[in-house]
């Protein structure tokens, strides 16, 4: 009789040097040797980024993600939507991040019991059970230094003794009985500009990706509604499950009972049809001379269309061609590093002052005898602009119903570079 075993069978955590440092089985035990297929695929791939997420082996399927230098490899036996598993694995990694402050091998090894308890709650028989961090935190308290000291003295535990009720209600994302002395609600409107700028400085492609991250510390069961001055800007939106979809459809108002703590309320895209104001420009001259083992490198970054705000936190990273041996540069502002192994040039510029534009100039040394690199490297730029949402999105107001106290409310805007690439 053939019967099926759906969903996630086992999970292996593997570090970059190929050690399996944690395994968890939700059904019968699968031998570690199944990971050999994964290692094989890893070897074939040029780098970690190129390990295929889905690998087929004779008896199992391996679906993996790569996060923070750890491979999460799950073992699957039958047909399952691969995104289902991938999304879940990322949720697991997010939870570790949330609990331990980082999702690293040491953090996981140090907290192996909590990790195990978490995994036990997150999956039942390979099917996701509780993935909301609000619920998990009620079940299993995250470790803190204070608590570990207290625990060792009093012998109490990290396992919540109250039973989670959130899981039972129809708003599983919020825990019950929240109490704060200061009731606060903060919203960070963060917009990222994704752009490809071509050689001549014209925009090949640009769009704005935004998120609203919230930090809500409100007692009881507040019912919030957030409205925008210009909601039509939002072209494509995805919501946290707490948001009432129909209210958005009909009134373009975000109405929700928030989870407690930090969470991502919405993410949105401002359509690429709209013109995107690019806040910086880059002047560049990179050339490699034929038959001589050197080249020139000269890059200037300047602000434009920044609505009177300062562009700060500017960092430029460049993957130089393999033939580059070393670089001798001088920066008028900030500092630069060049890693001769990975061939990555990083220039930390800092704040741009329009009066004196930052410039990085100098000589590139090439491997002698190697052919001249054909393509100039593209420049990846990062920057930040405080107090500005580049799309012009504005929060109109936040109202709270359901609770009597007056919360402290705040909205912060920030614009960042997303995948911002200048081709040279």
């Amino acid at each position: 009789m053939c019967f099926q075993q759906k969903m996630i069978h086992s999970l292996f955590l593997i570090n970059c040097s190929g050690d399996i440092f944690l395994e968890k089985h939700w059904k019968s035990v699968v031998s570690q040797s199944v990971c050999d297929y994964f290692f094989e695929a890893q070897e074939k791939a040029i780098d970690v980024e190129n390990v295929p997420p889905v690998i087929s082996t004779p008896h199992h399927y391996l679906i993996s993600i790569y996060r923070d230098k750890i491979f999460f490899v799950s073992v699957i036996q039958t047909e399952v939507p691969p995104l289902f598993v991938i999304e879940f694995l990322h949720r697991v990694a997010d939870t570790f991040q949330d609990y331990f402050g980082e999702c690293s091998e040491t953090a996981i090894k140090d907290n192996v019991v909590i990790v195990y308890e978490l995994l036990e709650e997150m999956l039942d028989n390979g099917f996701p059970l509780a993935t909301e961090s609000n619920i998990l935190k009620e079940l299993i308290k995250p470790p803190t230094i204070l608590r570990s000291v207290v625990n060792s003295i009093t012998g109490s535990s990290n396992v919540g003794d109250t039973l989670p009720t959130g899981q039972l209600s129809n708003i599983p994302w919020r825990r019950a009985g929240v109490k704060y002395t200061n009731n606060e609600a903060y919203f960070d409107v963060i917009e990222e500009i994704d752009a490809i700028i071509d050689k001549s400085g014209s925009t090949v492609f640009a769009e704005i990706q935004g998120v609203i991250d919230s930090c809500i510390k409100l007692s009881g069961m507040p019912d919030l509604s957030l409205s925008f001055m210009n909601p039509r800007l939002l072209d494509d939106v995805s919501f946290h499950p707490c948001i009432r979809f129909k209210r958005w459809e009909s009134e373009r108002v975000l109405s929700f009972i928030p989870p407690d703590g930090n969470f991502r309320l919405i993410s949105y895209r401002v359509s690429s049809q709209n013109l995107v104001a690019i806040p910086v420009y880059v002047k560049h001259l990179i050339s490699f001379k034929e038959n001589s083992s050197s080249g020139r490198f000269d890059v200037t970054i300047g602000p434009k269309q920044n609505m009177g705000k300062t562009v700060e936190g500017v960092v430029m990273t460049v993957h130089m061609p393999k033939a580059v041996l070393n670089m001798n540069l001088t920066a008028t502002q900030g500092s630069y590093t060049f890693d001769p192994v990975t061939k990555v040039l990083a220039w930390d510029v800092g704040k741009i002052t329009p009066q004196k534009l930052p410039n990085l100039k100098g000589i590139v040394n090439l491997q002698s005898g190697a052919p001249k690199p054909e393509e100039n490297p593209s420049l990846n730029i990062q920057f930040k602009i405080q107090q500005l949402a580049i799309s012009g999105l504005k929060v109109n107001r936040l109202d709270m119903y359901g609770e009597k106290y007056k919360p402290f409310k705040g909205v912060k805007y920030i614009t960042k570079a997303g995948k911002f690439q200048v081709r040279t």
Partner: protein
Amino acid sequence: MSGNGIGYGEQGGEVAPELAQEAAPTTAPSVPAAFGLFSSDTKKNEDLKQMLESSKDSAKLDAMKRIVGMIAKGKNASELFPAVVKNVASKNIEIKKLVYVYLMRYAEEQQDLALLSISTFQRALKDPNQLIRASALRVLSSIRVPIIVPIMMLAIKEASSDLSPYVRKNAAHAIQKLYSLDPEQKEMLIEVIEKLLRDRSTLVAGSVVMAFEEVCPDRIDLIHKNYRKLCNLLVDVEEWGQVVIIHMLTRYARTQFVSPWKTDEDVGDEYNENNFYESDEEQKEKDRKVKKTYTMDPDHRLLLRNTKPLLQSRNAAVVMAVAQLYWHLAPKSEAGIISKSLVRLLRSNREVQYIVLQNIATMSIQRKGMFEPYLKSFYVRSTDPTMIKTLKLEIMTNLANEANISTLLREFQTYVKSQDKQFAAATIQAIGRCATNISEVTDTCLNGLVCLLSNRDEIVVAESVVVIKKLLQTQPAHHGEIIKHMAKLLDNITVPVARASILWLIGEYCERVPKIAPDVLRKTAKSFTNEDDLVKLQILNLGAKLYLTNSKQTKLLTQYVLNLGKYDQSYDIRDRTRFIRQLIVPNEKSGALSKYAKKIFLAQKPAPLLESPFKDRDHFQLGTLSHTLNSRATGYLELSDWPEVAPDPAVRNVEVAESAKEWTAILSKTKKEKPTEKFYSESEEEEEDSASTSATESESGSESEKERKEESSSNESSESSSSTGVSSDSESEESTEKKTSGAAEESDSEDIKKKAKEISKSRSTFSSSDTESSSSEESSSNSKSESDSNNDSDTEKSRNATSSKKGEKTVQGRKAPNKQDVFLLDLDDFYPVTTPVAVPAAAILSPSLTADLEGLSLSGSPVIDVTTQVFVPTKMHEMLHRMTGKGLSAHYQFSRQPCIFGDRMVSVQVTLTNTSDQKIENIHIGEKKLPPGMRMHEFNPIECLEPERSVTVSMGIDFCDSTQTASFQLCTKDDHFNVNIQPPVGELLLPVTMSEKDFKKEQGMLTGMNETSATIDVAPQNSTSRVITERLMKAANLGVVPSGQDKIHRFAAKTVHSGSLMLVTVELKESSTAQLIINTEKTVIGSVLLRELKPVLSQG
């Protein structure tokens, strides 16, 4: 097994605790290094054992933590089993949990010992706390020990009818586990699945569908009755459940509905066929016009509509699931909406990108138009991983057309120069494909590729050669120059594939380059021995072709090459050499074949088709593992083709206990509209009562009209507005839906939402003047603050507004029963929760509801709202026995739903069964003998009832808040029978929700003669809050009032006719007695209710 033996011994001895206690601290640090020979593991385990047997929880916990650490590292800890299993009953939750972890890991290996733990779980299964029951079931079912299969089966069966939806959810999970342990149980498990599928809780839905998919995915018949419910619940199900349900419904829909695609392609052809497609039911509908267009089954439409919002989910798997549903089910004109959401996912991490891009690649082959507007989103960044780059390239190639090719080629030029050579090579292939697909650019591409031949990178050159070869094959006539150029390249290129390609080209077109070809052969003959096998074969080929066309010059050369080949190491080459020699060199042995050698070698060869590698993936369902791997994964369920004729859509109609509203769909056309509408949506439009069907009809007609204008581009708009078919009203539902503000996930009743909305409206109007100042402030300061004073004045005003609207609200409150939708408001979800767990009530009551309530009580007026019933009694009362009814039997029951015929009526469901062997015709209500004031809304006459069939009809009776009997005649064509309906007092009520505060306030006003009370004995098993609630609900249609005190339970309702409040309080006292108090204006009814409720709690 020796480990087991020891284990048993220790277990039997039950361990002297003192000894263990002493031993634990001493042995722990003293792991001596002296026993070098023994593995330190065994000794460590020794000390763990002792720690586990200590009486201190901290030591046990420590040991368990270390053991879990061992398990995590994959070390064997099985020999500790006996020591660990004893702690399964530990009081410490953390120890207990870790023991569970251990048990789940090792129980399978140590089955005998695992049995020791079973009784603990069996006990926990009866625990009053639902969470403990659930976790016991979870662990019990995770222990893969075949002996306990019967116990598991029993536990699952019991849990599947547990009051707590959370326990039922776990039961659904356990089904899968039991099935994988023992597939023999399939039949029994299917029964449980069937039962759980009927569950209305959103918590259960995802899990039970998962179980269904695993145990009996082919039993599509189980889904029929639950189809609409699943569609409606979908938005509120947790995200993982959504994915599973959507995939299941996709398969379901492909078997149940006809294809919406054919009409997209050619409307004209469908003209005749379409009539054929209509189901019987539809054909019965009189004088309908012959439709030109395909009409979508309303259920099909329902699915599409209800999944659409999920495209906005933050979960990539949900978005992908909806996308594949639209791809496989939606009319082609509508599938376009998914592209935007899919493109959004491309911002996600690389694994998600990888899968999404693969799916887009498949889609973009078939329907370019869908993704064309997003072409730029697929532009490659130098930082993308190669696998992402190549997928993006693939999509761009699929999207290429005359209009965008020039931009694309410019983009490709950048890619060709990429440092990532593998990607550069893929780009060259892409250029080649564009060149063949779009004839306008073939020459441009070819020239570009020729330029690349002088590239310094060998891989790029080689790839170009291969692509050029393919391109030339498609149009060799005027490319002699290019061939010459390539012949020159042969000196420098070393990549075998490229060399082979060039040689093949020269051989194939040797007549076009008569001078060069023999020279090439000369050169390659020289280097023959050093060439790759691939190249050697092509040299042989070239020789053969030249021998046939130009034997004068090349005869000797060819023979030389053939001789070399004869002694080659590779048998492939020796084989080929022999073959060619026999074929081309005439000798006495060679037969007729050599005459045709030229025709064989230089036959006109078809040009290769440059195709996408994703071409053949479309036969897999999108979003599946099989699609990603491009091979059938185990357990892949084929998506069936659309049926030619849709199976009977009536199977999805829900009857009897499920819904009183569905009956009309089968029986009466005029009434059809309203019930279905209510079923589908939370439409609010039934302000006016029963009679005005015509009004509704026209309304829905006009709405469908509107709808059609909106969707005029798509062919599938509704049928003519005169038809009152199901489809038209489901169409109209979309617009009615817009009227309701709240999302379906709020389980508060409609009118609360309405009020909240009103308030927000009033606020916004008031605040509009403020808005500017506040926003300007916000933007100018940009600090994390907003002036409170501003806010203050707002609330002040809105408070005024609220109180001024007070009067209005109460009126609405009365009307409320009409506006409810039982199916969307999923009250089962929270009602059991209120009872057993002692946590602050406000938190567990549907929070938005409480929140709204509390927000509203600002105004100082009590808020009392009608809710849906939480318990539907299944008790049937006999109205007409089949003997007296001459074969016609009738039963009635109280559905506890707000009556649709009038808001003062109680709705009664009557089930009529024909037990005779003849048709019973014209069943209707005859003469009525009603007490004064009592009114009754009859059901529509039933024209005909077949033998062995039964129908359920619903009627409304206004009992005037009395328990008097309604007598009337039930008539058939030939007979009439006197029947009567007597309502239990508990059915004359409608449940209301109110806050505890309001309850107390109201109670304060209803004292003195309005209060009746009694002391009752409570049977001990009835003293838990869950049982009390359950029992009272069963007896009377009451609503639970959240209570802050453990011992006091409050319930509220109002009478159906007069709307007077009925407040019930149960106060548990010492020594198993309780005080039962009822406060109401209607003292008569109050005392009758008291009498009826008294025995309820004292019975065992």
